[in-house]
């Protein structure tokens, strides 16, 4: 099993899974908060339509976790929008 690095911690994934699938597989369904109400958000539509599941991937902000295939060594930072 391969690993990505989420907020500095290794997270195992099965080759073929997206970043969102890897997170949900460990029981996480929320990984950022909204700008106005600071409401927790994670995966909702799962197919790239809703933009709820945003993460930073290898330094690039605003990536939809449900669309980005996980790759070994990829760094993911959650908490998008918390500081906006």
């Amino acid at each position, binding site marked *: 099993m391969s690993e990505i690095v989420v907020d500095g911690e290794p997270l195992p994934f099965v080759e073929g899974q997206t970043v969102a699938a890897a997170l949900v597989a460990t029981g996480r369904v929320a990984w950022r908060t909204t700008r106005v109400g600071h409401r927790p*958000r994670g995966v*909702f539509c799962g197919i790239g339509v809703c*933009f709820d599941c945003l993460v930073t991937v290898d*330094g690039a902000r605003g990536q939809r976790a449900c669309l980005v295939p996980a790759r070994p060594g990829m760094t993911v930072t959650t908490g998008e929008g918390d500081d906006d």
Partner: protein
Amino acid sequence: MTEPPDLVVVGAGPAGMAAAATALAGGLRVALLDSGTALGGQYWRHPPEHARAALPTDDLHHGLDRYRALCEALAAHRTAGRLDLRLGHHAWSAVREGDGFAVHAVDRREAPRESAVVLRAPRLLVATGAYDRQLPFPGWDLPGVLTAGGMQALLKGGGVAAGSRVVLGGTGPFLLPVAAGLAARGVEVVAVCEAASPRAWLRHPGPLLRNPGKWAEGAGYAATLVRHRVPVSPRTAIVAAEGGERVTSVRIASLAADGSPRPGTERRVEVDAVGVGWGFAPQLDLLAPLGCSVTDSADGNAVVAVDGGQRTTVPGLYTAGETCGVGGAALAVNEGRLAAASVLADSRATLVPATKPLAALRSAVARQRAFARAMALAHPIPPAWSSWLTDETVVCRCEEVTAGSIRAACADGAHDHRQIKQLTRAGMGWCQGRMCGPAVHCLTARRRAYEPAERLVATPVTLGALADLDEGPPASAASADSSETDKECP
């Protein structure tokens, strides 16, 4: 493929795959692009080819024989150099260019890195499908509440269940395969809340009798659900979700004929995930800016108007599948074939495609569309659904606009979702109204069919990727990295 294509097909779901295969069989060169990492779209969503041994999900599918046959046909044409397959490519715009079309896409196979690509052809076939239609309810933005399609996508594409104790709600036959798939993976599906009454189907006996395949499919799901003791409750709905950092329970109520909760029937059910879907909203982003006419469909959506051969009102532009009316995969495949037959006829192609005779294809499409119409009439959005909303309920998830704000804007005279957008910012966030649009429309103008806002950019694209395109080689040379694409070859 070095020569430019005769046809670009956007979307490699059932409609796009069938269209591409038919056009190729008729001798055309085709470019087929899709944002996914595998052929199949949402209906035949699969892990990428190289990962299927580690992530076996074939047992969650229907009609895999047809999928495999289409994959094999496409693979053969690809080997022969007639098919330019672009997986991991997100089309963000399609424009008229001279007598043909230019499709602008970003290659995201190495996401987050992206590069811009332009594919040009005299004819364009858009088969971009649809996504779950949502109606807000208190707590629907809690983590753990997903679209029914999102739950299925995680399961089929990643082998992951979003929870261990799940309730599903909304309307339409799609809830059944989602429930069956979750149950097959050991998830406890506590309830399937179907807002409609099964008796509504009895008003449309003709389409039912003429589509026995649909009954067989339904019976298969029913058998799975019985085996796993999953209760399906008609005329019920999830009227609220509760929790803190994630959903912990839902409130379920029986519905009166108008969709309002029957007093005294409400009960609380503990869950760790929820899946909801109220039919589907067609994905018209690439089609609307090209100016093709739309028409009313029976399910509350405006869909692209097509002639008997899937031609839109824009010359050279064709569409097939859910973009011209939500009707399922079997109809989408037949529409794809029909659209490609029109492309061949309009291109004066010399080869005869290896498909059913046109008359049989047209008759199958007519029969399946009649079924889709009966389905839409049997599974309407409950008229009184908005009675579930409190003023504090978030309607626009991106901009966090509440039902109270939208009601106030309506009271100020707003009469469609565009005006609500101007007055409240509902629909102005990241998703550009894709999630809240149908609901806001229903709150303001439900007597008309929902016509989504025109979006000139269908998916975000970085300026960096566009700048590289200006300085880079011409688009036809963009397939020089085909060795990478080969990894995803079906």
